[in-house]
């Protein structure tokens, strides 16, 4: 049976997010992902609050990256969370995004190696080892916790490109696929399968999640309107190859990129075309969303993540997913 995850961006105060998390847990969501960006509130503080007010939901950063945060610190934070909520904690890690890293002057280099090494360091640290590491990206002279970590913590790798997807299949316990369109998800799942095969694992040993930008409302127009800003940013950050594959006008994408750079939101959001919304989001009425999710499930994903914006009204949207979407996939 497919699992339903939900993503929150800690731009809002902890108490609002925690309110929604409690609501999501009551409504049947099984996984919580909180984004990790320097310009929002801290992911681990947000997750701690969520952990204290829930009892079942599995949670983790969705996703952190090895450039802004050294994997030794990530291991410490996640291992501590695992004491607070044993067996409910996972790590979500990816390569981060260049635009955000550029803001803080952190160089984005060799993402595949950086993620691979950080997963290795994370696992060894949370296994209680004294880690001496001579990697290409990480050099660790000798690091060991002065406390005993509580058991194995599943690692999910956030991925979009073919190499990262294959790596995720090979070394991850789960994969967070950043895609919404069935063609993209199917392509991604095939890449994951290559990595799984290389590691001599079974595909069902890996929890494969479609991490989507999602918006639901009973009124189609309202759901679409809420998705537009998120889609604008996705289009602006997408490689030309991906846009061309979906027949998206590169000039329009360029226009959005320029408008966002100039903080001209009206022009940027106004340039978002219906085909962009179709490709880069799962949005619509509950019935439309059920249809879209059912299409994605055919590719073999085991988790569907309801990501930002969730809906024009988050509280209402969580209720809609809980009452009209999740039950559809529980029979």
């Amino acid at each position, binding site marked *: 049976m497919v699992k339903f995850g939900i993503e929150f961006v800690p731009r809002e*105060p902890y*108490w609002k997010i925690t309110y929604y998390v409690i609501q999501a847990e009551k409504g049947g969501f099984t996984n919580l992902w909180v984004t990790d960006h320097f310009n929002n509130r801290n992911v681990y503080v947000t997750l701690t609050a969520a952990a204290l007010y829930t009892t079942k939901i599995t949670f983790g950063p969705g996703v952190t990256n090895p450039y802004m945060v050294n994997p030794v610190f990530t291991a410490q934070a996640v291992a501590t969370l695992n004491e607070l909520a044993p067996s409910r904690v996972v790590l979500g890690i990816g390569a981060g995004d260049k635009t955000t890293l550029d803001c803080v002057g952190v160089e984005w280099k060799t993402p595949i190696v950086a993620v691979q090494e950080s997963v290795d360091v994370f696992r060894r640290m949370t296994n209680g080892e004294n880690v001496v590491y001579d990697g290409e990206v990480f050099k660790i002279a000798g690091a060991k916790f002065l406390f005993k970590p509580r058991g194995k913590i599943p690692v999910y790798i956030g991925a979009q490109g073919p190499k990262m997807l294959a790596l995720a299949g090979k070394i991850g316990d789960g994969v967070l696929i950043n895609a919404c369109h069935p063609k993209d998800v199917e392509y991604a799942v095939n890449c994951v399968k290559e990595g799984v095969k290389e590691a001599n694992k079974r595909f069902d040993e890996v929890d494969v999640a479609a991490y989507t930008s999602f918006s639901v409302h009973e009124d189609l127009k309202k759901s679409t309107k809420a998705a537009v800003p998120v889609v604008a940013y996705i289009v602006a950050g997408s490689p030309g190859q991906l846009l061309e594959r979906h027949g998206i006008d590169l000039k329009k994408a360029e226009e959005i990129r320029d408008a966002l750079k100039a903080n001209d939101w009206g022009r940027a959001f106004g340039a978002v075309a219906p085909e962009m919304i179709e490709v880069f989001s799962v949005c619509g009425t509950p019935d439309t969303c059920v249809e879209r999710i059912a299409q994605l499930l055919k590719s073999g994903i085991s988790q569907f993540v309801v990501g930002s914006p969730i809906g024009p009204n988050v*509280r209402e949207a969580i209720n809609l997913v809980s009452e009209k979407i999740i039950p559809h996939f529980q029979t």
Partner: protein
Amino acid sequence: MDYGKLVEAVAIQKRSVLSDKLVDLILASKNDDKMPSQLANTMLNHWQKDVLNTQTGLTVLLEAAVLLEPEKTLAALTELQLTNIAEQLKEALVKT
């Protein structure tokens, strides 16, 4: 202000709908900085236990709603025909 006393006057059949309205108002508010963390934690505790529509739950919600959105809270109470409570609240707000 004794929010508990104000809530006592809310008829039982109106408690759920009032609770719902106040939660919407609190979550939609942009005045996040006016929410004391202790009050927020108490609200979350009540929500976790599913008792936001009880006497104590509504007391917490009303206090939070008044701190974050006093005018909208008065409007919500009036809309639910809880005019007496709205008037008492208005009077108390003018005094503070």
